[in-house]
């Protein structure tokens, strides 16, 4: 029952997330590239997506984590606790940034737009999912090898 309710909340969160991305303009790669093109004909509007999202989430995060011992459906919050800056974080962010800048698509908008069936977009999504699974499997293999004597 708890698992089912969790799935419902996730589903609703996903729907709202997709609507937010679409309304904000994040599912139009041309607009995203115009936002990233700061030395060209810059379209600054997408900066407000982050402002709006961070304003709502930042306030909500402080209120929720200071008032509640645990989330409503689970025994504890599952939040990242690391604070160290390592090469993996920086190199990964560089690769992601280059990919985002090449086509103007990041993971959320790419999945949201998948329902269009646009061939180019689906090729991008296939590359993205292959990259994710490839990295996950390579990391597992590496950790496995490190564990072995």
């Amino acid at each position, binding site marked *: 029952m708890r*698992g089912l*309710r*969790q799935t419902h909340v*996730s589903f609703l969160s*996903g*729907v709202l997330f*997709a*609507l*937010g*991305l*679409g*309304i*904000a*303009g994040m*599912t139009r790669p041309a607009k995203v*590239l115009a936002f990233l*093109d700061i030395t060209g004909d810059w*379209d600054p509007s997408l*900066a*407000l*997506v*982050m*402002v*709006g*999202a961070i*304003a*709502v*989430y930042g*306030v909500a*995060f402080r209120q*929720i*984590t200071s008032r509640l011992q645990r989330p409503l459906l*689970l025994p*504890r*919050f*599952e939040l*990242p606790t690391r604070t160290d800056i390592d090469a993996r974080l920086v190199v*990964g*962010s560089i*690769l*992601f*940034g280059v*990919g*985002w*800048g*090449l*086509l*103007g698509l990041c*993971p959320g908008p790419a*999945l*949201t*737009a998948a329902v269009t069936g646009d061939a*180019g977009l689906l090729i*991008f999504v*296939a*590359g993205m999912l292959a*990259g*994710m*699974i490839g*990295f996950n499997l390579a990391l597992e293999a590496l950790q496995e090898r490190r564990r072995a004597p």
Partner: protein
Amino acid sequence: MHLSDLALVLPLASARAPATLLAGATAPDLAAALFGGALIGLASMLLLLFSGRVAGISGVVGGLLPPRLGDLDWRVGFVAGLLVGGLALRLALPSTLDLSTLPDSTPLLLLGGALVGVGTRMGNGCTSGHGVCGVGRMSRRSVVATVTFMAFAAGTVFLSRHVIGG
């Protein structure tokens, strides 16, 4: 658009982005971006409030590849929600899904996708997990990641539009 959303967000927006900086965009675009952003914040808040989790798309999807029992339902639910949300956009606001400018080159599309896929798994997050949730809770790692991917995305656009292409 709810006025209450604007009332909450506008003072912050004006503080962080002076009006002159925003002159390159139209008012409806700015309002839509702010409202869409607030919806994204709300969606992320729901996941935190009920499940205590970070709404990071690459993390949610990456955890499904390969899928693991016991950690499956909420991830599948979220991705299904994204797709249904996409369908709703397609039916109600089709102009929001404008992919006509994507290049035809299959190698370029695959390369971009692979960079995004590998990069977000390696860096433990993307625009949502680091950019919204991480920066929203002022995580040091997320601020570094966000500044890094924004800078390299802008740099890539600069190179491809003004140095190589154009």
